[in-house]
């Protein structure tokens, strides 16, 4: 056997001359096969393929050729690596002349560096330090130092090690060091292992400390996650929900979006184009009143509730509309109504929203006594509320949003919601009317408006009405106890002239009334002299009350020193002609009013002494005469 070479660049081949020639030919063939491979990339070929190729060239028996090739390549093991796979023989070489399996050097990889020598930084810690979210504001984050480095710095005890682990390598070194010392200081040698033996169990203690399962909520409350979800929700349900909602809403990535009490991933919320929004707006304007989301979906998008994505589509519609300026949410939980710019306003135009808010502000100032006769529980349980209409409510078709009414009517669904559109049915007349509920904001009170027409058509001031829930969360009914038709001269506001004026007119009504609150001429005839102040002046409670006392009170003084005696009932009715007021608010005004003093002899009766007027200011003597004329009557 001799060694040969195929040239200056090729490998040297062994074996007989024939074998060398054959091996060289196979190498040349496989080099051609992998000529575009990397120099050290493996080039594989099966013995069967090679035998067939050479047999075809030499026109010989493939089996014989296979034996020859196998013998030749076996003789050149350095060049051809032989493997057997699935019953076939595979030869591997490379353009360099031999095949060496590649060894990947991972010593300097990031993962390797982090996890050696013994996983110093737990994966959980990494998830805290490396976050995919970017905080909206720069915050000082706590620095988490892995247990490993804390142990190295001596801040934490070393973890316990198994007897047959790798860690004892260090201990072995320490033992060697101790052994070295042993030769010179025997006492120390004896003491050292004992100390180690004694300290070891003590050091094990902290490592076995149970995992901390208590988490601290953003509001400082600590909860233990060992407790079941049901328990935690039972005790901290509202807090946990509110905190999660805040976290979701303040998430800069807006991964989850909310509408009302519902949440859904933003990425899964369907988008609505300008054309879709225009179609919705056109449809609302065409119908002429706020519409529920379900109706919009059905009539504009022809989406069927039976479709699998109906609820997610509905959520998308509500969420997208809530972010559009042209649309306003005016619905409640269970009836998501949408209004749009350009729809006709609901309710009286005679009182502006800010004026009404000021007038009902007394409710927010703590003078709401609506729960004196009915408790919140009874209202919620029965689903109905009794109320006596005052003149102001009757005249302007409004109802103050008292706590009693709030117990009956739905609350806001969105945190920035200002209004809700409700429908009030009058089943005794088979009619219904849209009304707008304005929720209180700050020191301004809330109210319901839009009931002017039914109040004027069916009721009078002093009427006892019952407001009840229906099955539909945004529909309510107003009923009253019917009574024989009665005609009476009742107070009305005559606005036909340039200056509005109160007057008594013949009206017929057929409902039960609280006679004390019925503003008829017989009881409250002097109220026709009330001045119909502009609305912005009516918010001044004391001034209004003084005007009422002066108008309706019985004169007990002289012309030079006028004084009036007036009952609380008269003041209450009179004040409620000019503006809404509760009895508690009236009592507050009387207490605060410097010109009011209680009548010691008669209960619930007050004296009012007006500010002295100059003689030159004495005008409208006719009106003064009216007072005395009435008194004469």
């Amino acid at each position, binding site marked *: 056997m001799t060694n040969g070479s195929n040239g200056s660049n090729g490998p040297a081949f062994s074996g007989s001359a024939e074998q060398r020639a054959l091996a060289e030919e196979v190498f040349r063939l496989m080099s051609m096969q992998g000529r575009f491979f990397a120099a050290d990339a493996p080039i594989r070929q099966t013995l069967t393929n090679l035998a067939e190729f050479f047999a075809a060239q030499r026109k010989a028996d493939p089996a014989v050729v296979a034996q020859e090739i196998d013998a030749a390549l076996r003789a050149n093991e350095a060049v051809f690596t032989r493997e057997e796979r699935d019953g076939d023989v595979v030869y591997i070489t490379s353009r360099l002349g031999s095949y060496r399996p590649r060894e990947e050097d991972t010593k300097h990889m990031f993962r390797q560096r982090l996890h050696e020598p013994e996983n110093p930084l737990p994966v*959980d810690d990494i998830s805290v330090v490396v976050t*995919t979210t970017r905080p909206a504001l720069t915050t000082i984050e706590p620095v988490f130092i892995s247990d490993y480095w804390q142990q190295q710095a001596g801040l934490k005890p070393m973890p316990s090690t198994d007897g047959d682990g790798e860690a004892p390598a260090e201990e072995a070194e320490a033992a060697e060091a101790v052994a070295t010392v042993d030769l010179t200081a025997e006492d120390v040698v004896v003491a050292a292992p004992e100390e180690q033996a004694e300290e070891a169990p003590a050091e094990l203690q902290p490592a076995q400390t149970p995992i901390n*399962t208590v988490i601290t*909520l953003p509001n400082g409350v600590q909860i233990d996650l060992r407790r079941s*979800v049901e328990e935690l929700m039972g005790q901290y349900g509202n807090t946990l*929900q509110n905190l999660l909602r805040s*976290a979701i809403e303040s998430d800069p990535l807006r991964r*989850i979006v909310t509408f009302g009490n519902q949440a*859904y991933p933003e990425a899964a919320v369907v988008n609505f184009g300008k054309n879709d929004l225009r179609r919705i707006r056109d449809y609302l304007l065409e119908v002429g009143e706020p519409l529920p989301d379900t109706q919009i979906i059905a009539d504009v998008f022809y989406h069927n509730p039976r479709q699998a994505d109906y*609820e997610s589509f509905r959520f998308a519609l509500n969420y997208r509309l809530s972010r559009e300026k042209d649309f306003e949410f005016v619905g409640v939980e269970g009836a998501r109504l949408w209004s749009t710019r350009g729809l006709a306003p609901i309710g009286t135009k005679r009182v502006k929203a800010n004026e009404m808010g000021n007038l009902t502000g007394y409710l927010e100032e703590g003078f709401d006594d609506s729960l004196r006769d009915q408790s919140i529980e009874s209202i919620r349980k029965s689903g109905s509320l009794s109320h006596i209409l005052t003149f102001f409510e009757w005249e302007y078709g409004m109802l103050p949003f008292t706590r009693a009414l709030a117990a009956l009517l739905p609350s806001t669904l969105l945190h920035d919601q200002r209004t809700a559109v409700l429908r009030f049915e009058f089943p005794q007349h088979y009619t219904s009317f849209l009304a707008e509920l304005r929720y209180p904001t700050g020191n301004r009170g809330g109210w319901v408006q839009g009931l002017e027409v039914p109040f004027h058509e069916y009721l009078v001031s002093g009427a006892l009405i019952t407001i009840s829930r229906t099955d539909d969360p945004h529909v309510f009914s107003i009923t009253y106890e019917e009574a024989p038709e009665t005609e009476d001269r009742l107070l009305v506001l005559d606005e036909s002239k340039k200056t509005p004026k109160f007057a008594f007119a013949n009206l017929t009504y057929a409902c039960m009334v609280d006679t004390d609150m019925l503003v008829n001429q017989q009881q409250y005839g002097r109220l026709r002299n009330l001045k119909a102040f502009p609305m912005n002046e009516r918010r001044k409670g004391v001034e209004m009350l003084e005007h009422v006392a002066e108008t309706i009170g019985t004169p007990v003084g002289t012309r030079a020193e006028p004084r009036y005696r007036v009952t609380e009932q008269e003041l209450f009715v009179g004040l409620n002609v000019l503006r809404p007021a509760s009895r508690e608010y009236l009592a507050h005004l009387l207490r605060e009013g410097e010109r009011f003093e209680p009548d010691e002899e008669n209960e619930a009766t007050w004296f009012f002494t007006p500010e002295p007027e100059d003689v030159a200011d004495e005008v409208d003597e006719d009106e003064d005469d009216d007072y005395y004329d009435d008194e004469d009557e």
Partner: protein
Amino acid sequence: MDGKNVIYGETAMDRLVQVLRASGQPQDIAWLTERYLELLRELVLAEEQAS
């Protein structure tokens, strides 16, 4: 995970998004809070079981 490293409203929020998406339809905040507590419990108690 150690409870002291849990930030309520931040930790495991990605997984909560996945859970919500997998549910296939909008869910109440109460439902979401319960699922979130379950995720946090898994995280905290998993380490306890592992140790």
